[in-house]
């Protein structure tokens, strides 16, 4: 085990369709905010790590060079971490490894995406295998629709119940987004609106899907020595992390009981000493671009048994006042600048245990789970943070 690592500050842009700023200026908005929040300056930082989805998203390759100025990284070690949709959590992992190894005391992690400038689904389709699969796998919704079917068929779940639970998730997350000043989509929706929205890829309808967002998130990680030196009282200690990938070909591995999600969570739980996640965790930021998939994640993460998620969702178990509130920020469903999104999950988890989440604060949250997934249903990453060292 390496040295202890804490998150000491978070900066987010106002996410949304941000045609009022260039991409570098957007990135700098998040970086300025994290320095303002922590009272630190770029001179204090030992290294910078940044990441996005594929470069085709915005048409500029190697964005960590593009943003050297916006991240004030000149003269410092710089890394890029890129794991598709899970990039953000991988950025948090990279910063953790860097400090935990003893090679740095302060690391700036920056995730960013400006999705409205390109064609996001065309970009994502370039992730897909070019000879056999690209003709049939249409961006993210196509893949995740199939996954949600595998799951509901596996457990013989009642179609109407699953539909109702998905609508419940959509309505409550859209409501929560109003309490998050940085969230993108802020609309009130009813269960009927969700169930009658246009089909994107059956069973996924328009209000079951995340938006294309522009946004960036900057997080500063610190060693224990640095936390003491700066005299910080409220920080988010990294308690556990886990990451797993699967085979490349879509179709080679089971996605209903998604082993990369199961194993990534298990690794993080083992490190954090968590035995019963639903009881021990106070809040979770699950990467949820699709309502149906969120339920599958609850099961893979052991928040409930396999096939149980729809019932518990409808009972409010994962609502803001439930036993384990999930995505009180409104989650990925309401805000998805992909390269930033996973880091936003970790940042939101950190804000919760630092009691800085504002109107979407879960009272007394001490242990928080964050997660992101990526690839063609290929990768899952988890980071758990807590208020206690």
């Amino acid at each position, binding site marked *: 085990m390496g040295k202890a690592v804490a998150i000491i500050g978070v900066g987010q842009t106002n996410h949304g369709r941000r045609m009022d700023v260039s991409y570098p200026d957007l990135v700098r908005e998040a970086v300025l905010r994290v320095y303002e929040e922590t009272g630190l300056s770029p001179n204090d930082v030992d290294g910078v790590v940044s990441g996005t989805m594929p470069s085709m998203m915005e*048409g500029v390759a190697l964005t960590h060079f593009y943003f050297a100025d916006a991240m004030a990284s000149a003269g410092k070690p710089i890394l890029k971490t890129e794991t598709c949709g899970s990039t953000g959590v991988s950025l948090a992992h990279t910063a953790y490894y860097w400090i935990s190894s003893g090679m740095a005391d302060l690391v700036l992690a920056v995730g960013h995406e400006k999705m409205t400038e390109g064609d996001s689904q065309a970009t994502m389709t370039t992730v897909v295998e070019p000879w056999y699969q690209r*003709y*049939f796998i249409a961006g993210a919704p196509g893949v995740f629709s199939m996954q949600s079917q595998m799951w509901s068929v596996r457990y013989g779940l009642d179609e109407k119940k699953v539909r109702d639970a998905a609508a419940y998730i959509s309505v409550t997350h859209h409501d929560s987004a109003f309490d998050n000043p940085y969230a993108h989509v802020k609309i009130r929706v009813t269960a009927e609106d969700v169930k009658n929205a246009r089909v994107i*890829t059956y069973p996924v309808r328009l209000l079951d899907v995340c938006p294309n967002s522009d946004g960036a998130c900057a997080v500063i990680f610190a060693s224990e020595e640095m936390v003491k030196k700066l005299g910080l009282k409220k920080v988010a200690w990294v308690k556990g992390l886990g990451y797993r990938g699967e085979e490349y070909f879509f*179709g080679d591995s089971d996605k209903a009981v998604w082993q990369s999600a199961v194993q990534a969570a298990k690794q993080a739980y083992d490190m954090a000493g968590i035995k019963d996640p639903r009881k021990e965790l106070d809040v979770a930021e699950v990467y949820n671009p699709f309502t149906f998939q969120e339920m599958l994640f609850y099961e893979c993460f052991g928040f409930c048994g396999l096939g149980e998620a729809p019932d518990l969702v409808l009972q409010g178990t994962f609502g803001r006042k439930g036993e384990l509130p999930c995505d009180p920020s409104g989650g990925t469903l309401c805000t998805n600048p992909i390269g930033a999104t996973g880091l936003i999950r970790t940042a939101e988890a950190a804000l919760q245990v630092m009691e800085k989440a504002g109107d979407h604060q879960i009272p007394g949250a001490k242990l928080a789970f964050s997660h992101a997934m990526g690839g063609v249903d290929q990768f899952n990453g988890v980071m758990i943070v807590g208020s206690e060292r």
Partner: protein
Amino acid sequence: MNKEFKTIKTEIRLPYELAYGATWTRFFEGMSNQILYGSKCEKCNRVLVPARTFCPRCFIDTKEWVEVPQQGTLTAWSYVNYRYFGQPTTPPFIGALIRLDGTDVDFVHLLGGFDLSDFEKVRKIVKNGMRVEAVWANERKAHIMDIRYFKPLA
């Protein structure tokens, strides 16, 4: 503050020529002859389709070629009804995961052979677990679209 800011329109087009290598050259030659090849891993005994140079789980070369049945069972499907730049298949279409008989992984292709224009009608026809069969193109080019689609078996 609703001020409009300027934008620039730009485009990147790059040509590629991707090498199939020996395994996939043979697989696609098989397709042009209406044959679907899989490979069997001698360690885990799984039959992988399309054929592979090596088993991704055991990380050993696969040596045994098998001709895979052209009928299978529908694992999952996705009715795609949206468009994006450069989309190779025109929507609406149904992407599908199909477990071909005697294989151990799902093969990705299209479902077709019926009217796709009305989703509600499609939903009555397509069921997870239904039997499907490959329908070949008359003119074949050693390409994945040498199979036009998999059609439901009555």
